[in-house]
């Protein structure tokens, strides 16, 4: 054997062994793979949600609302600063349309002093209107940064919640500018997960203003420092929902950010579930002094703008512990504890896309896809043998190696196999023989014009190679573009196609050629079975 051929043979065997080893766990199954010897790879091919069932969720973070929250806080602080500087203001508010902070002063003479104060204290803002009313706008760069932070924070909070929800191998990633993709394989109660993930979970404790008249407030006469929030009660037996209005102080006593831990407990006359929470030291201090000075008053526990309960403060609560009661089911209490532990989302999220696939559908898809692939490849295999005889058998081996490389590469790179991905494998099976068809047809032609077997094979390969290269590169370009633009399932298609095309070039040019070289060298045939 020539050294050139020998080197190629070694490379081929190494490639087959490498990808073959990575494909083994998928063939033997996850459990058997664990018992493989230590040097063997253990990972099976990662199946897409369309094949194993689960939920694919695309969330959009309402970053504008996160900005609005920041602006509201800043405008609140600004009011205090104006008061401290003895500048009388008429109104300071955030225009929800333009996201500008609007400041209208009582006395025009104070304008310059107000502008100085703003310039000194709010470097992140630009003044868009110096004349009254003064308008401030958050600088573009800072706003972008805040939005980015909001998304990052949302991702980490959601990841935290998903981890505690107890799903195997969840994925939470950013997608594009401001989308978050959550994938929960094999999840049973998808809608519960969506509720848990999507809950803003902003917890606030407000003092109930018992001096205010509720009827007046409902008619629009809300005292300036108060707001109306509803308690929503669901009758556990009839399921009837009732809304009870409360007038509460706008000032927040305790926020969810001060919570360090939350857990489900049982108690009361019915042994009902409730959620107990613990506060950090700062929160505990505030809580104990506040409760001590407001005995007999009611404290509203507000979660996402809904009052859960408004217990009367019986005495000073020291130790920084509190509880949220309501007509919770055990699951509800459990999920509430999770969201309180994992913190609140910086802004509300919206469901942009939600795909839930039952596990049985995934199984059917795998069965049908595999069946189609087996039938298709059997037809190709038999046809190749029928048409090209022994050389056809060789092309079939090349095709089998192709499939092995695709499967091995999928496992090696932790790529995901989707249903369109299966179609991609099937398609590469059809196209895999193409390279060999090109070569064989060329060899036949060369034999026809009377070349020796040896010459015919060599020119056949040489002539066909450029064509194979050109043709595969263009298809590869398409596959790469598909990968760039596609979503999950389509990406899977692009991946299997790309690997398939590369494997195709490899097997056609090296594998079948080397076998030919060896056969020609060893047996020196004067006829080819082609």
């Amino acid at each position: 054997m020539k050294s050139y051929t020998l080197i190629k043979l070694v490379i081929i065997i190494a490639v087959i062994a490498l990808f073959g080893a990575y494909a083994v766990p998928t063939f033997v199954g996850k459990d058997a793979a664990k018992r493989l010897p230590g040097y063997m790879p253990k990972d099976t091919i990662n199946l897409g949600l369309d094949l194993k069932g689960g939920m694919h969720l695309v969330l959009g973070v309402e970053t504008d609302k996160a900005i609005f929250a920041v602006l509201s806080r800043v405008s609140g602080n600004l009011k205090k600063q104006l008061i401290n500087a003895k500048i009388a203001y008429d109104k300071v508010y955030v225009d929800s349309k333009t996201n500008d902070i609007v400041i209208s002063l009582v006395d025009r003479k104070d304008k310059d002093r107000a502008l100085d104060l703003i310039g000194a204290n709010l470097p992140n803002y630009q003044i868009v209107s110096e004349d009254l009313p003064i308008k401030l706008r958050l600088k573009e760069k800072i706003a972008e940064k805040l939005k980015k932070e909001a998304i990052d924070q949302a991702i980490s909070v959601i990841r935290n919640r998903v981890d505690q929800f107890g799903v195997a191998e969840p994925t939470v990633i950013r997608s594009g500018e401001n989308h978050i993709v959550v994938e929960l394989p094999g999840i049973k109660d998808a809608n519960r997960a969506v509720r848990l993930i999507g809950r803003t979970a902003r917890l606030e404790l407000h003092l109930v203003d018992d001096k205010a008249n509720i009827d007046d407030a409902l008619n629009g006469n809300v005292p300036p420092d108060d707001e109306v929030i509803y308690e929503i009660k669901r009758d556990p037996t009839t399921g009837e929902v009732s809304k009870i209005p409360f007038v509460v102080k706008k000032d927040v006593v305790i926020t969810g950010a001060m919570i360090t831990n939350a857990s489900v407990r049982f108690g009361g006359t019915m042994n009902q579930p409730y959620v107990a929470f613990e506060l950090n030291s700062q929160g505990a201090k505030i809580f104990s002094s506040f409760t001590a000075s407001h005995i007999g008053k009611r404290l509203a526990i507000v979660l996402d703008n809904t009052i859960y309960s408004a217990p009367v403060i019986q005495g000073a609560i020291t130790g920084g512990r509190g509880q949220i009661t309501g007509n919770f089911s055990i699951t509800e209490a459990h999920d509430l504890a999770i969201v309180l532990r994992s913190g609140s989302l910086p802004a509300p999220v919206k469901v942009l896309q939600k795909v839930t696939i039952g596990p049985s559908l995934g199984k059917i898809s795998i069965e049908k896809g595999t069946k189609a692939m087996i039938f298709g490849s059997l037809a190709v295999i038999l046809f190749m043998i029928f048409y090209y005889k022994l050389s056809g058998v060789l092309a079939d081996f090349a095709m089998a190696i192709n499939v092995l490389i695709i499967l091995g590469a999928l496992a090696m790179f932790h790529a995901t196999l989707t249903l369109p991905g299966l179609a991609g494998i099937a398609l590469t099976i059809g196209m895999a023989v193409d390279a060999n068809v090109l070569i064989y047809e060329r060899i036949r032609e060369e034999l026809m014009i009377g070349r020796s077997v040896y010459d015919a094979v060599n020119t056949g390969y040489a002539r066909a190679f450029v064509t194979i290269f050109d043709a595969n590169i263009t298809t590869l370009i398409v596959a790469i573009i598909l990968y760039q633009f596609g979503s999950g399932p389509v990406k899977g298609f692009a991946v299997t196609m790309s690997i398939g095309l590369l494997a195709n070039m490899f097997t056609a040019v090296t594998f079948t050629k080397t076998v030919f070289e060896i056969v020609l060298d060893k047996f020196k045939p004067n006829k080819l079975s082609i």
Partner: protein
Amino acid sequence: MIRIVKPDVLIDFVSKFKLAIGISLVLILIGMGSLVMQGGPKLGIEFKGGTSIQLQFNKPINVVDLRKAVASLKTFKDSRIQSFGGTNQHYIIYTKTSTSSTTQNIEDKLKSVLDKQFHSNYKIMKVDMVGPKIGKEFRDKGLEAIIIALLAILIYISIRFQYRFAFGAIAALFHDVLITVGFLSLFGYEFTLDVVAAILTIVGYSINDTIVIYDRIREKVKNNRKMSPTEAINKGVSETLSRTILTAGTTLFVVLALYLFGGHALKGMSFALLVGIVSGTYSSIFIASPVLLAFKGPLIPEKKEEDSADRFKQQIEFDMKNVRGN
């Protein structure tokens, strides 16, 4: 030796060019006509937003019962019910409604009426909900992908061949995309992400086929400068005909298997591939090659003969000789 095409067969493809263009135009017009009649392509929910819910019943049901139950819901007022699998057990309900809320969902509403009508004799297999905003994003992205793919191929072929080859290849691609889109519309298939992926794959497949033929035409011209363009095209196409048919054949085997056995989820995609592969093979022979004649002068100008592909080929041949010499 079994042969699909006898050696030394020379078919006059160029003379059939006009007939071929006629047939293609008629097919494209029929397809486009159906597209216009339907008021544009039937977009899948991932492109226009909405919800689809796939149901499986334990035993065959009467679709009228299902329709009645679904129609009683406000959310499903504009819904459409599609049956598949042929056993009256599998249905997909489409509605334009979607919800961005994290606390409400559409399938629970459906469940409440289905539970009354069918009790627990059914299962929700799949729920697919896409908001209108992300639908537009998918639409833009899909279109962008198709345009970029066409441009990239145009550039690649322009570099590897002459501009007129690029022109012919792109003409064939447009032909294939239009035929496929027309047939999809004619047979009532929806345009989903999978189908767009299939169309792009067809683009790749068709170009692959065209290149193989172009390569041979180029070779013909270079080997014999005196050969007329018509003769070079006829010879090039005829000589590669068996390969063209064989590859189309093996690929069709698998795609047909996907279409027949791949289940409902792969129907649209495999249908697009079936049409596209037939069209791609046809267009490489009857459209891409004769279009080369639309330009005057020799197929390949003399001085461009030594292009990179050629040098590459010579290098390979040189290497082969050396190997043989050892």
